[in-house]
């Protein structure tokens, strides 16, 4: 869970930095926000791959958390 939190925090910060770079280049906010969302430009096959990748990302920490809980119960 800690790793997921760190990664999410980093992604939010990096997305903010990317937004900042776009603003520095002189683009207006509405143009940037349109493509800022990666889901905005995706079609069904891409979304399927994305969901699969995110599922793998979440499954592992959840699985290890459940395993630890079982061990504690024993």
């Amino acid at each position, binding site marked *: 869970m800690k790793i997921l939190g760190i990664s999410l925090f980093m992604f939010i910060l*990096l997305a903010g930095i990317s937004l900042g*770079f776009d603003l520095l280049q002189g683009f207006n906010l509405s143009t940037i926000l349109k*493509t800022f969302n*990666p889901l905005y430009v995706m079609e069904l096959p891409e979304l399927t791959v994305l969901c699969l990748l995110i599922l793998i990302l979440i499954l592992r920490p959840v699985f290890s958390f459940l395993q630890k809980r079982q061990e504690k119960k024993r």
Partner: protein
Amino acid sequence: MEKAKISASQLFILMILFQLSNSLLIPLAINAGRDSWLAIIIAMIVSIFLFSVYQALYQYYPALLPTDYMEKLIGKVFGRTLAFLYILFFLFSAARVLREFGVMLLSLAFPETPLFVMSALLILVVVYTVYKGIEVVARTGELLFVVMGLLGLFLLLLIAISGLIDISNLKPFLEEPSKVIKTAFTETLYVPFGEIIVFTMIFPYLNQARKLKKTAIFAIGTTGVILALTMALNISVLGLALTERALFPLLSTIQSIEVGEFLERVDVIFVLILVIGGFFKVSVYVYGAVIGTASLFNIKEPSRLAYPLGMVVLLLSMIVANNYPQHLQEGLKVFPLYAQLPFQVIIPVLLLIIAFFKNKKT
């Protein structure tokens, strides 16, 4: 830090693969016009001095990662914040490289495949390699360096045989010297030479520390000569106007190869070379970010960070720019000034000054 060691030759190969990768793809130092090859050579010489700064810092703390010695140098709060910023810088750079390779593969070989799927395939390989550790990255480098070198030589031979090279395209020499100097110091110094800052995360894994200086300088020199030759070749084959307009100049050069009316379309070999290089560049950046994060947040198994940080790079590569021309503009105007100049030049120099005075006292 993981318990691993790499040899000087492995470091040499990694540095060459890392620096060559996307520099072969983009129109490097093209603002210097016909003298872009000269701008690359100047940037290479200056970058050797820049490397001396990184190496001097490493000499003060040979067993520590930069994320650790920053804390020792400027205090816990500032040191950790700076280390975290460096990790973000590595991840952002990795995302930019991933985007470049995704676009290249799409525009050349897979026009119907979505960018996200292409980038996802590349990052999954990177994640697996980083998960296995630096020794695996280095050994893979040894294996693929030979393939890349042989293919590169084959392409060079084909270009020479096909009689495309016209040296007169490179004349007049030194038309605008001020442009050459400006390009060398504002663009080429940061990409690809300054990017070796990420290797400061790998230096502590070197098994023969005394060989570092010689190895790295030799790697920088070799890369500089190869890149300068490549740009000179592009301009002599395509001419300046076409090289300036091309998104991927070397690709256009290779596409014009035609030997004996039967050997054409060898651009697939070029793609193979680039994918090898791109894989290493993203791998080294992600590896730097992974071990940096592990040491900063006290994570016992750094390999567990490989997949989540790989996903961060993947998603970021999708939102890093609206389109490829904007991505290139960002790489030429905004990114060098606001990210590469401070992280590659200013901060290391300041840290070295602080390290010098701190170690003088004790």
